[in-house]
């Protein structure tokens, strides 16, 4: 178990969003957290990435409490890409990706050949090598998103937490990003945790699916076990048919419509 949340309590100010949640992330897997808006999936991801300190419980990285590890050491093991990050105006793609090397740099070693190759590798994996000198604010939404992913890749971490990495992307680019995630996992053995909204893509690219509602984990397991018609009703208040994806054989959700009010949970 590489990353574990043990009985965590999470919130902002005096508002509690997640209380007493347990979750484990196995090494070498792709885990996706799904759930309706406001269910606490991003909050959970932020806590796993030590961006949010739990007010109760603990998060363990390789068995050690993450908040007691030096943050720079964590940054060499664990990369986090928050939702909709922003960059100062005029920053070029290459400069942004180079900033992913931040945890590996010291004041006397600002730019090693290792940094250089990590940045090049990250840029070529996302297909951005030719856009290196373009300012980020001139790119399309999809290119910008890929540039941010490149930054997280350049960080060179075993573990990668991505909060909605496919927002702003058209379907083709969504597939491209998720194929990239699959390669990271299958070729490089990285462990990935994502928050996704598209259930069908989540089912297709995920080993382990975690469904949340109201700050609690409702179901977890392989997509085939989790994505059932009953669960969709329970978690999303959605009436849907689940059929077999003709390409991959994974579950395919075909929405029917919202559940009639009496059947809704709240």
């Amino acid at each position, binding site marked *: 178990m590489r990353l574990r949340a043990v009985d965590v309590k999470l*919130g*902002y*100010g*005096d508002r509690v969003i997640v209380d007493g949640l347990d979750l484990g992330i196995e090494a070498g897997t792709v885990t996706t957290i799904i759930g309706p808006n406001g269910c606490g999936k991003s*909050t959970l991801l932020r806590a796993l990435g030590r961006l949010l300190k739990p007010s109760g419980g603990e998060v363990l990285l390789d068995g050690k409490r993450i908040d007691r590890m030096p943050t720079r050491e964590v940054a060499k093991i664990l990369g986090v890409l928050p*939702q909709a990050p*922003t960059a100062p*105006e005029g920053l070029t793609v290459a400069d942004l990706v180079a900033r992913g090397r931040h945890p590996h740099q010291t004041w006397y070693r600002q730019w090693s050949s290792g940094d250089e190759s990590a940045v090049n590798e990250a840029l070529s994996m996302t297909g951005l090598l030719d856009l290196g000198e373009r300012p980020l*604010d001139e790119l399309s939404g999809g290119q910008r998103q890929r540039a941010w992913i490149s930054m997280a890749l350049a960080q060179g971490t075993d573990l990668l937490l991505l*909060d909605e990495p496919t927002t702003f992307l058209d379907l083709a680019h969504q597939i491209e990003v998720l194929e990239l995630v699959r390669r990271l996992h299958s070729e490089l053995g990285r462990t990935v945790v994502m928050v996704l909204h598209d259930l069908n893509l989540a089912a297709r690219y995920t080993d382990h699916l975690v469904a949340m509602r109201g700050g609690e984990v409702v179901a977890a397991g392989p997509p085939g076990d989790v994505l059932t018609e009953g669960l969709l009703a329970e978690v999303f208040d959605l009436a849907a048919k689940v059929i077999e994806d003709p390409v991959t054989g994974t579950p395919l959700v075909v929405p029917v419509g919202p559940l009639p009010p009496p059947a809704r949970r709240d």
Partner: protein
Amino acid sequence: MSAPAEKARPVSAPAEKATPVSASEEKATTPYARDHRVRERPLRIGPASWTVRPRSAAVALVLLAATALLTALGMRIGDIPMSLAQVVGAVVGDGPDHFVVMELRLPRALTGVLVGAALALAGAVTQAVARNPLASPDVLGVTPGASVSVVAVIVATSSAAGGPGGTLATLGIPLLSLIGGLVGALAVYTLAWRGGLDGYRLVLVGIGVSAVFTNVKYWLLTIGDVNDSGRAMVWISGSLNGRGWEHVVPVAIGLAVLVPPALLGARSLDALRFGDDTVTGLGVRSNLVRSLMVLAAVLLASVATAAAGPIAFVALAAPQVALRLTGAARPPLVVSALTGAALTVAADLVARTAFSPVELPVGVVTAVLGAPYLIYLLIRARRKARS
């Protein structure tokens, strides 16, 4: 992390593209931050309907009461000390105190109330247009323009003609301040206009223009006699000493004329907080709204400065205090104005009593009272966010 109320107004005047400090954090906190705020209640009379926030209304009432009480307390002080009852009696009655109260003390007190309200309102509008909590009428060129004109005349007339004459002191200086303030604002506005009025460019141009005025003012203070510098400093600080009805009336007219359109424009100000694309999408003509709101702020600040000098800190702090008292998303106009009035009147009370019989200019005290209170509000907001 930080106070929700602060998160709601990012400090980096954000553009369409460049979003604030930590967008992700903000995104994560705002839905819950809303919880701290009081929801709006609809108020419908016939076809008209407004939304009223109970918390803002309560804060406004408290501030109104505080202003009235402080004004009355201030009117007790003077060569003939009076009790509160005597003050009230002198206002309604016809006794020997009637003249003193009605002709000397009441106009001074009212000048304080109105000037404080006008400055605070101007500050609230400026901060909303610039989307920057550090913006104030100083940035619009008003107060620096007024200051440099008045200092120039004080320094020039003293050595040549043995001090400004009676007409100059009573009529000339306010008029000069008014003209200086308007010219300063015109300079900022013209230089900032470039096929449209961008809040960000307005603020930066304003800083540049103000720097010129301010540094020339510093230089003028060094070339004259040190006594003139002292007299100029009193005016620069802002003073209510000897203010009469002739100071009350212009500010009152200014407020009466400018407050209704400013309040109407407030709805558009809410829209202005978004980027220009969104604003246009919401059906607001952004350049027109911005220009009119800036004009209102300029006029309010100019009139107030002409009456009492550029009283420090009110325009900047009152909107920020009001923002935190009401938990609103942008500086609320009415509450800001009332905060400004209360702050100015309270400061004048302290300015006259603290070192009595020496009287300090009111502008020296506004910051001494306002700054600790603003800091207290900042700290409290952070405490709340943590607990």
